[in-house]
């Protein structure tokens, strides 16, 4: 490339390079490409909020329009990360409010969001469009009220600094509260949306417990012609759905509230009519407390559905099987194990376009199985659905034969997460470990990117994973392995590994120390209830300055115990931001001086 290649053209070329990976590659080509790239980067993804800092972000990328940040480790979903661990978004909002007045999108996952942060968001960004928070917590409905009040404002002459914004208008498009833990003061926040607010495209309030004003909701829906996705909360009664749906026949995605009401013919008829009016509906969710008599109201929609989320729906067979088998174009199904093997057989027979299946346990802590769901269901789906590539399956029994069959049927799997509810459960037919079965999965499924293991597993399964799992990016391990060799196989063999999370495995210092450099090539490593000694953590912290080694131990300072005593939990991640300053008093950071930080 001639040195005279003009920057504007280079920037234009980069405008067609979208993925983070490619843009990162571009920035590493040479100094001038680095410069052009950083000025033209509009979208940023930060997989671990502590791997960088707001200052570093802003210094490097001055013209960002869209930010996505993730906080807590994934095992926080299983309550393994104590309260107060961290992941606060406020410092990021403060910095971005100053530096990115044109920021349009904020997407957060597993972060702690305060009401102050939400208020700041609502007032700071002139062109703000999208606020999407998944599994976040720390805010109340007051914070939501701030967002609602300021979602639609004009900026007039009183904006002295920026007179040329006189005609700009902030128009919120998306408010998505996915599985958030909101401190519900009242549903009154919803009334803060001004009457001038008409730009809404997507609204998800499914996690809100309290009632929102139904008239306000209906008015909002009616005046937003671009509304495509509406996911209601449980509190919206079934009888009110027809009114809402009639006002928004253009919906592509809809989440019901509680799907129960007195069984009345008029309600049923109006509901059926309303649903059949939604000609563009592709995704359905919600369905709390289902009254089976009302299920047929959605039957007319089934053939158009590509996404069906019944993970809260207590629908049983045969209603469930019937419903699912009507959805010929289904691509994604999330369902409770009420579907049973028979329902999965029906799925396999009817839904040939299925890409993703998630089966959740209805009674995970019950000692006995409450439903007839076994490994057979998954085998059937793997046989019948040629496009199946993503699986999350909770069950109580598994066999090597079944896993091998699944692997042979579906070498195109990219995500395979199997959760056998009982730890260390062996192959129920042969009582052997499930090493061979999982080995078949990793060997056959060459593009496997995500894997979760369960059941009885020895070091052998890790040897298979290390040998074949070259594209695995995220690996979850629980109650498995015999020795450090297991961990060593994974760390030395899995070239693409980004996130590794381990609990209750006999993995200790040796494998960790031997593979220390590997940790800098990964996003993070979580180990809890393993056998890593405090001394090894110290060594790692001292030798690897670009890693943050955080010991989470609620028993008190690690120095009060011997060097060889095991730490409770360990979280190691690479960072360019140095040690973090917001740790609670049960997290001990190991750094070069082996002095740990208390906050």
């Amino acid at each position, binding site marked *: 490339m001639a040195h005279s290649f*003009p920057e504007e*053209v280079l920037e234009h070329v980069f405008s067609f390079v979208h993925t983070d990976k490619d843009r990162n590659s571009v920035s*590493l080509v040479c100094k001038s490409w680095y410069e052009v790239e950083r000025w033209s980067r509009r979208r940023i993804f930060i997989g671990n909020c502590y791997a960088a800092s707001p200052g570093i972000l802003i210094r490097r990328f001055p013209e960002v329009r869209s930010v996505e940040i993730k906080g807590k480790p994934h095992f926080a979903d299983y309550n393994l990360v104590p309260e107060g661990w961290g992941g606060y978004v406020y410092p990021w909002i403060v910095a971005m409010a100053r530096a990115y007045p044109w920021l349009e999108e904020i997407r957060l996952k597993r972060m702690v969001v305060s009401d102050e942060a939400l208020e700041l968001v609502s007032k700071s960004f002139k062109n703000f469009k999208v606020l999407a928070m998944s599994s976040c917590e720390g805010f109340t409905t007051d914070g939501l009220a701030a967002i609602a009040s300021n979602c639609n404002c004009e900026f007039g002459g009183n904006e002295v600094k920026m007179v040329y914004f006189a005609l700009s208008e902030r128009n919120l498009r998306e408010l998505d509260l996915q599985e958030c833990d909101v401190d519900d003061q009242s549903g009154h926040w919803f009334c803060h949306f001004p009457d001038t607010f008409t730009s809404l495209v997507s609204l998800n309030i499914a996690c809100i417990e309290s009632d929102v004003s139904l008239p306000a909701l209906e008015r909002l829906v009616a005046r937003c012609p671009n509304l495509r996705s509406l996911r209601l909360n449980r509190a919206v009664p079934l009888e009110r759905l027809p009114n809402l749906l009639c006002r928004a026949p253009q919906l592509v995605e809809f989440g019901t509230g509680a799907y129960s009401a007195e069984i009345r013919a008029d309600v049923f008829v109006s509901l059926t009519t309303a649903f059949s009016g939604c000609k563009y509906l592709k995704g359905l969710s919600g369905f709390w407390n289902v009254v089976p008599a009302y299920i047929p109201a959605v039957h007319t929609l089934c053939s158009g559905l590509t996404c069906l989320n019944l993970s809260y729906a207590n629908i049983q067979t045969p209603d469930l099987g019937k419903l699912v088998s009507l959805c010929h174009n289904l691509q994604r199904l999330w369902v409770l194990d009420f579907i049973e093997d028979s329902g999965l057989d029906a799925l396999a027979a009817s839904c040939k376009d299925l890409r993703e299946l998630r089966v959740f346990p209805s009674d995970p802590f019950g*000692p006995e199985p409450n439903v007839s769901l076994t490994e057979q269901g998954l085998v059937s789906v793997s046989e019948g659905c040629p496009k199946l590539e993503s699986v999350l399956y909770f069950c109580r029994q598994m066999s090597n034969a079944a896993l091998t069959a699944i692997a042979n049927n579906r070498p195109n799997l990219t995500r395979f997460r199997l959760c056998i*509810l009982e730890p260390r459960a062996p192959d129920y037919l042969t009582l052997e470990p499930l090493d061979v079965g999982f080995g078949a999965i990793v060997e056959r499924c060459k593009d496997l990117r995500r894997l979760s293991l369960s059941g009885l597993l020895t070091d052998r399964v890790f040897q298979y994973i290390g040998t074949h799992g070259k594209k695995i990016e995220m690996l979850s391990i*629980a109650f498995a392995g015999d020795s450090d060799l297991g961990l060593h196989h994974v760390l030395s063999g899995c070239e693409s590994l980004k996130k590794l999370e381990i609990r209750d495995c006999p993995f200790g210092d040796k494998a960790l120390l031997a593979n220390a450099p590997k940790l800098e090539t990964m996003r993070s490593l979580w180990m809890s209830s393993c056998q890593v000694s405090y001394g090894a953590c110290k060594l790692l912290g001292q030798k690897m300055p670009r890693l943050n080694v955080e010991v989470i131990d609620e028993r008190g300072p690690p120095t009060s115990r011997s060097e060889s005593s095991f730490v409770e939990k360990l979280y190691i991640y690479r960072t360019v931001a140095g040690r973090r300053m917001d740790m609670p008093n049960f997290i001990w950071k190991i750094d070069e001086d082996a002095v740990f930080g208390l906050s």
Partner: protein
Amino acid sequence: MHGQRYKVVPFEEILHARMSEGTMAVVKPEMKSYIWVQTADGSIQQVEEEVAMFCPMICREVLQTGMGSSKNYAISLPQRVNPATLGLILDYCRFHQLQGRSNKERKIFDEKFVRLDTEKLCELASAADSLQLRPLVDLTSRALARMIEGRTPEEVREIFNIPDDLTEEEKLEPLRNITDDPHIRLLNRLYARKRKELKEREQLKSIENEEERVDKRSVDDLLSFINGGDGDSKGVRAIKNKKKNRKRKDQLPRNSSSNNGNGDHKKNDTVDNVASPNKSSKFQDSEPVTFSPNLEFVEDDMDDELDPAMREEIDREVEDFARRLNSVWPKRIQESVSLGNERLVPMSVYGSGSLKRFNGFGKQQ
């Protein structure tokens, strides 16, 4: 010039401008008009008017300044447009300026058009940009972007012939090939050595047992034995083992990348296990897993690749690690074996007793 007939050209302004200034467009008998352009290297050429006017920059020059009507008044094209590139651009314009073409035809043409080597593509993008020919800039930029997608920085540098001027520090250090890391190699050696020691200790124990049992030799025999007639049998045994290990190492692949040996081995395993499920090893066996080739005993020849200072440092670190390992190894073995045998209180694998939300099972996106 006076006597020549000419056709009225679409651009009335040009005609008026030229007539008023007393110059006239050169007209060929085929009734086409031509424009004169000059590239940066000084060469001047004629190009069909309707084709050239497809380029906004040329169009503007002609309309605003009246240039291009004769050789002496040739339009100076921007520096980035050399004759070869101009030819390509004119080909593009010649095709696209024709109204009757379908979208599909245009698309097919475009796809073929950008099948050029990187250098030409860059020149073309650059030239098209200077001529403000937006569609061609887009087309070439997209093609260049496709060449970048999915590539490593090194590959991109090679494709575009760009020198690497970023420092290691700026790049935050290249990702090292983990299996080549001297620390790992040496620690693997340590593992292998440890296992060998354990094995030898066991073997020696069994040898001792044997000898105790069959030692009914005469005193003379014993004396000669002790005084080194055959050499120390234990020593011979040990040396033999060393030799065996060395041979084994040579036969195995050095790195994990091929692993064909291992793969086949595993395939056999799988077949065996499926065929006769009762025969497989129980997980409590002391050696249920074979080492991957990474962990095979790597001999001293590896040290030759390290410089002495680094080797010393690594040796020191290995000693450090070894001390720690030695102090806790036996205990750890016991612990890990006992953990496997423990019967734990049944608890859900991916949840604990107090599940805050039922949706903890990955119900979000």
